[in-house]
C-alpha cells in the first residue's frame, strides 16, 4: 500500500530553520555559502580566461567588462570568502579528527556540549578571517 504520509523534509530551508542556532550553525551555513560563492567564481573565472583562446580581441573585451569597480568589489568578496572558507576548513579538519570536542562525560543538566567547547576555535577563525580580509583585502583590491 502506498504511504499516505506527507513529506516534510526541510531541504535547503533546513539550513536556516529547525534548530537552536548555535554558533557552529552560523559557521556551517557561512561555510556552505562561501563554498558555493567560490564555485561560482571559479566557473566565471574559467569562462573569462577561456576567451583568450578565441583571440586577443575577445580577451581585451572580456577584461574591459570585468575591470569596473563592481567587479573589483566582487573580487574582494571572493577573497574574503576564500579567507573564511580556508580558515574554517582547517578548523573543521581539526574538529572532524576529534580535536577540541572533548571526551565523553556524564550528562548532567544544564548540559555542556562539544559545540560549546569548540566555540573558542570558531571565534578565533572568524577574528583572523576578519582581520586578514579587511586589512589585506581592502589594501589589495579596493585601494590599489
Amino acid at each position: 500500500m502506498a504511504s499516505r504520509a506527507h513529506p516534510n523534509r526541510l531541504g535547503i530551508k533546513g539550513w536556516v530553520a529547525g534548530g537552536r542556532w548555535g554558533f557552529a550553525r552560523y559557521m556551517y551555513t557561512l561555510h556552505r555559502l562561501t563554498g558555493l560563492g567560490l564555485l561560482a567564481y571559479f566557473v566565471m573565472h574559467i569562462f573569462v580566461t577561456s576567451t583568450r583562446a578565441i583571440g586577443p580581441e575577445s580577451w581585451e573585451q572580456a577584461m574591459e567588462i570585468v575591470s569596473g569597480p563592481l567587479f573589483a568589489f566582487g573580487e574582494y568578496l571572493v577573497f574574503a570568502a576564500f579567507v573564511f572558507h580556508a580558515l574554517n576548513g582547517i578548523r573543521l579538519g581539526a574538529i572532524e579528527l576529534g580535536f577540541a570536542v572533548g571526551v565523553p562525560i556524564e550528562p548532567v543538566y544544564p548540559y555542556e556540549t562539544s559545540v560549546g567547547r569548540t566555540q573558542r576555535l570558531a571565534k578565533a577563525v572568524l577574528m583572523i578571517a576578519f582581520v586578514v580580509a579587511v586589512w589585506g583585502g581592502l589594501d589589495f583590491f579596493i585601494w590599489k
Partner: protein
Amino acid sequence: MTDAAVKQVTFHVRRFEPGVDRAPHWESHAIPLTPGMTVLDGLWKLKELSAPSLAWRSSCRMGICGSCGMLINGRPRLACNTQISELGTDVVAVAPLPNFAIIKDLVPDLRPMFETHRELMPYLIRDDVAEQDDPTLEYWQSPHELEHYLQFSYCIKCGCCMAACPTVATDPQYAGPMPLGQAQRYNTDSRDGGFAERKEVLSGGSGPWRCHFAGECSQVCPKGVDPAKAIQLMKRELVSDLLRMRKRRDPAPVVQPPKGPRREEIPAAPPRTAGEA
C-alpha cells in the same frame, strides 16, 4: 477566581489528515494556562476542549520514552519536558518534527531513522554466541571503560537531532546523528568486537563524513547525549584505523570469580543472576 482572570495561552497546531488534506495547515485554539503546564499537558487540554481528533505520540510524560519530540516554537523539543512558561510567550506553535514524513497531525514517520539505526548494528557483536544466548558470567568492564560510551547510551531515540540537522534536511541518504551516535556508542564499548563490521556500513556518503559539524544535534538533544561529539570521535577512530594507528583490542572476557580464601567480615553476595549457583 473568575474565568476572566484565568490566563489563556494560544496553541497554533499543525494539522494534517491523511487522505483528506492535501497539505498540512495551521489551526489555532486558546486554552486556560495552569501553573506548571507543559506543552504536552496543553495538548491534552486542547484535545479535551476543542480538538478531539488531534493526534500525537506520547507515553511516559517524564522525558524518558522519547515519544513526544515535536517542533515547538521552531525548535525540536520534547513536549513533556517543555514548560509553557519557559517559552516566554503566550503563543505556542506546535508542528511535527521536520525531516520526517507526517503520518497525521503531530505524528512523524520515524521508520527511516530506525531502519538506519538497525543497519548500523546497535548491539554487542561478539564471537561467543553461546555465552550471549546463555550467559554463565558477566563481561568484565571497568568504570573507566564505561565512561567511554555512557554519555551516548542516554539516547532515547526521540528524533529531535534528526529534525535539527541541516545535513539531514538536504540529504535523505545521510544516516543522521542518532544512528551514527549509537554506532559510536557500541564501537567504544569494551565488550564489543564489531568495529570492523560497522566500518563497512559507515563508509561512503551516508556515513559520518557527511557531518560538517553544524552542532545542532547536540544543541537540541534533550538528554545531553552530544551526538556531534560521538560522530567526530567516530571519524577519529576511522582515520586511526586507516592509518593502522588504532589500538586493537579483543572484546572484554567474562569475569573470572576471585580466587583464594574469603575475608570473614565481608557480607555474603546476593544470589547470582546468571550461570549455575
